[in-house]
């Protein structure tokens, strides 16, 4: 089910060492009767420079998977290889430091690199510009809207200049227009830096818009049930017919999967109807 993944990688070079490799990874939370198998025997490769989108119903273990890859948590079984790559994780919530200004929050990503104060400030300004928050450096996180905070969090993740970018529903709180724009920016940066991206979303169209592959996780326990290669030429547009068509196929598969597990229908990821103005 998962062996030929790298070959499907949207025309990427294969035979390469994957940037991220999960082998038979399981994660159990808690112990004894109260234990919960969040991930079961997950195998997944992400090649360097590959953009992989992760889809699955709410609670199926997507965030868990990302924090395992990020090394914030240890798997209960199996292996995760990231081959000494630097990893940045954009959390599901913005996770900004409330005592720092927006700019200082982004600068924190540059601090570990040992850059000087001035250099840090200048770089932070560039990243804020990328997420279209150029004029907001001196504000505090609580003064921004939820979507703007997410963008600051994105700027911070990008500023880490990692090889692997893990993103947990990064654009969930954004309006369709801003989201489209950030898709373009993210695609550009991904190309420029040859990043490996693992991108969690509930939005099937978004997954098709961005991914080289869309990986479908089942719920309880989370398993990889299907791996859709997306071979549409880039640049893609979220509202194009081709994207809509492939998203439709994936959505059907996803529905079937959710039904099979008897999950509540309202937990089915939405089939991305652009909700813009």
């Amino acid at each position, binding site marked *: 089910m998962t062996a030929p993944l790298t070959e499907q990688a949207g025309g990427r070079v294969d035979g390469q060492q994957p940037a991220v490799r999960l082998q038979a990874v399981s994660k159990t939370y808690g112990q004894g009767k109260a234990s919960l198998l969040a991930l079961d025997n997950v195998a997944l490769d992400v090649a360097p420079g590959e953009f992989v989108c992760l889809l699955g119903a709410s609670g199926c273990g997507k965030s868990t998977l990302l924090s395992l890859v990020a090394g914030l948590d240890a798997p209960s079984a199996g292996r995760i290889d990231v081959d000494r790559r630097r990893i940045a994780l954009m959390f599901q919530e913005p996770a900004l*430091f*409330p005592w720092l200004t927006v700019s200082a929050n982004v600068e924190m990503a540059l601090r570990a690199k040992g850059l000087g104060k001035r250099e840090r400030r200048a770089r932070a300004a560039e990243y804020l510009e990328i997420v279209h928050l150029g004029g907001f450096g001196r504000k*505090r996180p*609580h*003064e921004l*809207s939820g979507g703007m905070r997410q963008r600051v969090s994105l700027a911070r993740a990008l500023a880490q200049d990692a090889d692997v970018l893990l993103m947990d529903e990064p654009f969930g709180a954004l309006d369709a*227009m801003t989201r489209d724009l950030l898709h373009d920016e993210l695609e550009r940066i991904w190309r420029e830096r040859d990043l490996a991206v693992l991108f969690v979303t509930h939005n099937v169209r978004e997954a098709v818009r961005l991914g080289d592959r869309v990986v479908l996780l089942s719920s309880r326990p989370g398993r990889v049930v299907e791996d859709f290669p997306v071979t549409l030429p880039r640049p893609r547009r979220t509202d194009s017919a081709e994207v809509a068509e492939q998203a439709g196929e994936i959505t059907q598969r996803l529905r079937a999967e959710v039904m099979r597990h008897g999950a509540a229908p309202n937990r089915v990821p939405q089939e991305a109807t652009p909700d813009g103005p």
Partner: protein
Amino acid sequence: MAADTHARQIAGLDALELAPARRAGLLTRAWAGTWPVALAVALVLAAWELVVLAGWWPEYVFAGPLTTLTELGHRLGEAEFYQALTVTLRRAVVGFALAIAVGLVVGALVSRIRPLRRAVGSLITGLQTMPSIAWFPLAILLFGLSESAILFVVVLGAAPSVANGLIAGVDYTPPILLRAGHMLGFRRLTLYRHVILPASLPSFLAGLKQGWAFAWRSLMAGELLVIIANRPSLGEQLHFARELADSPGLLATMIVILVIGILVDRLFGLADNALRRRWGLHQVTA
């Protein structure tokens, strides 16, 4: 569509999202802060006058507000009062500063080192519940009737609160911020410095505020008990006012002690408010 117009549209959307913050004018706020206090003071004075008028105690035992306030005004014009005030305030500042230093070190160590936490964690809380006056016999044995005896007790009274504030702050650092710090490459000491310490600031400030209250109480107890010749202090004035049955003087000194306590507490309140505003922690205004 050009990305440029797009970007401008986003800027427009963002501007819409951010309603301009409005804060009332200085005068309005000052008035809003003053009138409840003025009212409360007036009520207390009225009640006091009523008790005096009831005549349960003779006037030379329990002076009325007018006599007391006149006496207070009198004292405010005398150099002696300021000498006493200076001595007391200097002790308060030195003692509190020492307590902060001790509390910080102890709090930092206890919050970081697990076995130490188990060993002295509850001891600190125990110390906090110990009435500071119970320390004085020991302090006097150790240091004699000296400045050191007073400072010793002030530090013992205030340091546990400061340490506990810090420990609680460290314990309740939101895990998501720890994880974020970890992802940004901070470990151990750098994580402590850049994430945990700043995150514990509100709790630390609360500890400081409580520590101040303990320090001020301990200091007054100390000054009543440890009277050093030629070193006038507020506590000493209180002591002698009782010896000399100087009721207005006694009450006037008590008012001074109360007012200082309130003022410093207000300072902490202001610091706390400023912090909350910066962090976006302020409550919804009902």
